């Protein structure tokens, strides 16, 4: 199975939503006139809960929005931000598009590869970092930039990235 391939279906036990997520789910479903429209918000809730979308969570999302599981799988794979495999504690997403590239993003990415000993889409053996090259993050004025999880870090260079990584648990 190649690094980008993911499997559909789950043999494991069925997942249920934790009680603590109920209010969030109800709120998401109430925003739209039908359940299908809530598929992205509900996938996001699953990813917040489990850190990625394991196959059993895909089934749970499908049950929640009342769509066939393959349909939800087709939607989840269309968008780049749903993790269909586990990711590290810190998801380093380095912009590679033109403005960042003009300001040294390629060098920054190579530095991270060397420092962490992993390449694009890979996770460090200790599960601390996942490294990914991503497309424009709308932070071109602060190029080069990266997102760690949802947090923006701009005007980066090797030293700043080193200092940032030190601080992350």
């Amino acid at each position, binding site marked *: 199975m190649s690094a980008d391939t993911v499997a559909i279906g789950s043999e494991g036990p069925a997942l249920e939503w934790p009680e603590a997520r109920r209010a969030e789910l109800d709120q998401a479903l109430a*925003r*739209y*006139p*039908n359940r*299908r*429209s*809530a*598929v*992205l*918000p509900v*996938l*996001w809730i699953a990813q917040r809960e489990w850190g990625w979308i394991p196959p059993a969570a895909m089934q749970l999302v499908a049950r929640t*929005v009342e*769509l066939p599981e393959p349909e939800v799988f*087709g*939607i989840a794979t*269309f*968008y*780049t*931000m*749903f993790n269909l495999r586990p990711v590290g504690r810190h998801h380093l997403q380095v912009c*590679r*598009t*033109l*403005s960042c*590239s*003009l*300001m*040294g*993003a*390629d*060098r920054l990415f190579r530095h991270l590869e060397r420092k962490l000993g992993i390449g694009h889409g890979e996770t460090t053996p200790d599960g601390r970092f996942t490294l990914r090259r991503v*497309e*424009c*993050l*709308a*932070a*071109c*004025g*602060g*190029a*080069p930039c990266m*997102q760690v999880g*949802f*947090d*923006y870090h701009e*005007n*980066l*260079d090797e030293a*700043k990235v080193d200092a940032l990584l030190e601080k992350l648990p």
Partner: protein
Amino acid sequence: MRGPLLFSDIDTPGLASIETYRKGGGYEAASAMVGVKPPGECIDVVKASGLRGRGGAGFPTGLKWGFVPKDSPKPRYLVCNADESEPGTFKDRELMEKNPHLLLEGMILAAWAIQAHVGYIYLRGEFEYIQQILDRAIAEARAAGFLGPAVAGRGFALEIHTHLGAGAYICGEETALLSSLEGYRGQPRLKPPFPAVEGLYACPTVVNNVETLMNVPPILKNGAPWFRQWGTEKSPGTKILSVSGPVRKPGNYEVPMGLPLSTLIEEHCGGLLGGMAIKAVIPGGSSVPLLPASKLSTGLDFESMVAAGTLLGSGGVIVIDDQTCIVDALWNITRFYEHESCGKCTPCREGTYWMSEVFERLERGEGRESDIDLLSDVSDNILGKSFCALGDAAAMPVLGAIQHFRDEFEFHVRERRCLVNRRAPGLTERQAEAVPA
């Protein structure tokens, strides 16, 4: 004051809170219009202002609102396109982060004008922190009676919800955005029917960009002639330009439409970093053809840009310096479109892939004599033959680059290397020279 209109108070501390926003006159336009002035009057004022869409296409906003059928028995929807994903563009992010209530007030006024009772703000997935800011602002506006069953205490109901995308450039295309909002893969739909007639859930829908909607409250408060004091006859008002690349002061700048590109770069942004000169500028996000340095006196308005062979687009100004290889820069952009093509139609899906392959060959020094014409040919077969504008966006910059920098392409084939050595400036160098905007 960073700019005459939307940026006049953008850096006011605490502006994101409703108290501060109201102290500066916030929600006065909504109070004065909603339930008081007929919706048609709001549309007429916006039409008279000449406001044009700030998301990229520049379509007249009032005209778009006027397309919503008056007699439809279906509910109407207002959707704010906050999917800001056009490479080089980062204005909506700053606008929403610092002044979320101005967006809400713009949406309240637009919803009143088209008589929509539900509005959605479609944010790109990476803007999760902005969703939190907007959700807080929505709660505040609801508590203050500007959203909910009776906006401004009058008999007009309006709810606004945020909706987070999940990483797909194509969702900035309005019909793809609607597909995504309905819970499908974000793929575009055939037009017509246009969203104003059959949009979200097959109901009349207006989709407007963040900056466009934020221009609405000041226009309705101060009138069309006031708005027309800035800009040109056909492109009135101001435009927020996001400037990136090796300039001394990158960032967002609000300027009157028509300002020469050279003034923006040399005066507002302090020119280029030491020792560099401009080779080309992409004036409106990566989807538009670049302008060579000889055309920097072109005005930043819709008409002047078209006359110069490019587009104002989203206002994402990417400055390319003389040490950057144009072939490499275009390869970077082409890979973006290859990655973001939604796969629905063949010219875009296959064309962006093949263009990317040819660029890689050129950059590796394996280019063939016929490759330059091959790139033009593939571009020609994408342009105007794709399902939506993403294909055009991939093709236009390539054609523009070959037109203006054919010698660099030929050099790659002949000498099997770049004409210039790409020398990305280190940040240390940049920090030493940069002055905070």
